């Protein structure tokens, strides 16, 4: 470990207060994210997997400060803590960070021309210069060609494109501000399987050319392993296992990761037949005192019910949060 990685997130916490009724003062909270730490090297991809409700998207939105975190720190390049920035500095910094949404049908304004959509980050935001209509046309056409669409599409509207094409438009938009970090929030999970690989390869090509770092969120392990250098597995708002994707795919230590691996299509026989899973994740309002996976874990012991297992390094770069699998 010579220098600090490009992006370091430490102990990110977000609890959403439940709306209290008129007479109840009970301040119950949804424990969405409970101390997530991760690091991303420049030009690398960090995958984040987990089932619905595990806090992946909340983590991503916290990083871009769409929602404000309760605690934690986030160093980004030269900026020591993004969470400590005031609005003007944040505005300046946001040009460097972009977000690609899961649903390409909801993330493009249906009443706006593609030209306006892809150049929006350029026209507003910090340090934007007034571009002439001509320059905007050229920029938009260039961006579309960059993501494999025709430059003559700039006057069209989103409804004239398919899901995969729309996701390309979203990528073009994200690229327009020349960011150094893009959060991809399940960018392919709503797409046809035949289109998924095209989009993934496009993301890889762009990374190769520009050295962008990705935080790649998905619930599909195959997709995450394909794209990511390093993978973190989330469960109930915590990271339960993290490691290089090659290590994780072959030598997973945490029972939850194994469960996910066993659930991959064509992987039924892995680990000699994984145990059938009939459990549900715990309530995020009343988290259990011990390991969150306790209720579903085939290897649970009494210790697991009492204490939260810490995320510990088991071999170089591979971390796991389990008392049983050391």
């Amino acid at each position, binding site marked *: 470990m010579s220098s600090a990685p490009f992006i370091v997130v430490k102990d990110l916490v977000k609890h959403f207060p439940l709306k209290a009724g008129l007479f109840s003062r009970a301040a119950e909270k949804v424990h969405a994210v409970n101390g997530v730490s991760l690091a991303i090297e420049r030009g690398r991809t960090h995958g984040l997997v987990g089932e619905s409700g595990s806090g992946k998207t909340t983590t991503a939105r916290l990083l*871009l400060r*769409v929602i404000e975190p309760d605690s934690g720190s986030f160093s980004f390049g030269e900026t020591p803590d993004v969470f400590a920035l005031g609005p003007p500095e944040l*505005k300046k910094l*946001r*040009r460097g*960070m*972009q*977000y690609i*949404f899961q*649903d390409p049908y*909801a*993330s*493009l*304004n*249906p*009443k*706006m021309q593609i030209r*306006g*959509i892809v150049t*929006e*980050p350029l026209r*507003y*935001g*910090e340090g*934007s210069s007034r571009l002439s209509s001509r320059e905007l046309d050229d920029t938009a056409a260039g961006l579309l060609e960059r993501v494999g669409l025709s430059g003559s599409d700039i006057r069209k*509207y989103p*409804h*004239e494109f398919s899901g995969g094409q729309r996701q390309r438009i979203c990528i073009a*938009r994200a690229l327009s*501000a020349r960011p150094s970090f893009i959060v991809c929030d399940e960018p392919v999970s709503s797409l046809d399987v035949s289109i998924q690989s095209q989009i993934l390869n496009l993301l890889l090509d762009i990374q190769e050319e520009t050295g962008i770092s990705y935080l790649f969120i998905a619930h599909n392990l195959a997709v995450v392993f394909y794209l990511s250098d390093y993978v973190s597995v989330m469960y109930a708002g915590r990271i339960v296992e993290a490691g290089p994707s090659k290590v994780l795919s072959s030598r997973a230590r945490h029972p939850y990761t194994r469960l996910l691996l066993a659930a991959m299509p064509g992987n039924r026989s892995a680990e000699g037949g994984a145990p059938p899973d009939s459990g549900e994740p715990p309530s995020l309002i009343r988290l259990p005192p011990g390991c969150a996976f306790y209720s579903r874990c085939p290897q649970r012991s009494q210790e697991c019910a009492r204490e939260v297992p810490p995320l510990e390094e088991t071999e170089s770069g591979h971390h796991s949060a389990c008392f049983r699998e050391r």
Partner: protein
Amino acid sequence: MFAGTLLEIPYLKFRRNRLGVVSLAVLVVLYTGLLCEGFIAPYSPNLKFKTKSFQPPHRIHFFHEGQFIGPFAYEYVQTNPIFKEYRTDGSAIHRIRFFTEGSAYSLFFLIPARVHLFGTDTGSPVFLFGTDSLGRDIFSRIVYGAKISLTIGFVSIFLALAGGILIGGLAGYAGGVSDWIAMRGVEIIILLPTFYFFLFLRSVMPTDISPARKFFYITAILAVPSMAGGARSIRNWVLSLKNADYVTSAVLSGVPRLVILLTHIIPQIRSILILNITLSVPGAILGEAGLSFLNLGITEPSVSWGMLMSSAMDINVLINYPWMLLPAAVIILTVFSFFAFGYALKDALDPKA
């Protein structure tokens, strides 16, 4: 997916609705008439024909003593100047001619002109809708009254819309205390009976002001209730759209709030807004008519349809000179056309209809 333009299907659907097409045609005629009022009206609205007060509408004939001679009117001679009785003089024929020279006016409010749509060869006046107590041509007065009656609706609705977008949009965005205050204020206005609210606002305004300022005041008064309703519905739309992914990405790109409101949120509800405008205009027209009818709106020497009706308020006039009620027919026609057009538009724009 349908590859045509966004408006192609609504257009085809609208064209199938006959009533809608007819009302649109009526509205186009009315608004065109407004633009060339001086051309269509044969006389100035305040020109008094001293010996012709309360003259009934001229009947237009085509045959004189069994012979076709084209459209013409017989002279009506006043026989009783106190009770305003008239008899037809069968020998005095005034043929109706088109594009006759008459009093000077400016076409489209710009070009000086003297040619009127119609007149008589003898120069003696022809009154299609009769005359009022001072002998003024009611047809001409209706044509000139359109200027106020037909614009007041649109102007006040656009005023209401601008205010509604601003109040509702910002309340929906800001949320919290400012939203609460804005919405309670809006609800109070909505709760008040509209017409009494107009009367109240009118009573706190100065009375002896120029006609132009009076027009503006009345417009503003009529805008208040629609502004309240508009603010509430726009606020609801902002609430439902402000968490859309494209709004979030615009926020992340540093787009200012007002620009987000105007480029990302308002365009989604454009068709609803157009609909609301079309269906609110008749309300404003009726509001103006009501105020003017009670002599609280437009007053002499300006002319509006509501004001024209106020002279028909008297039972004696209603019984003896029923043509004085003709402005009401024009108001009904206009309001009906707006509603029919509005509902046709609604069906055309509704993808599920």
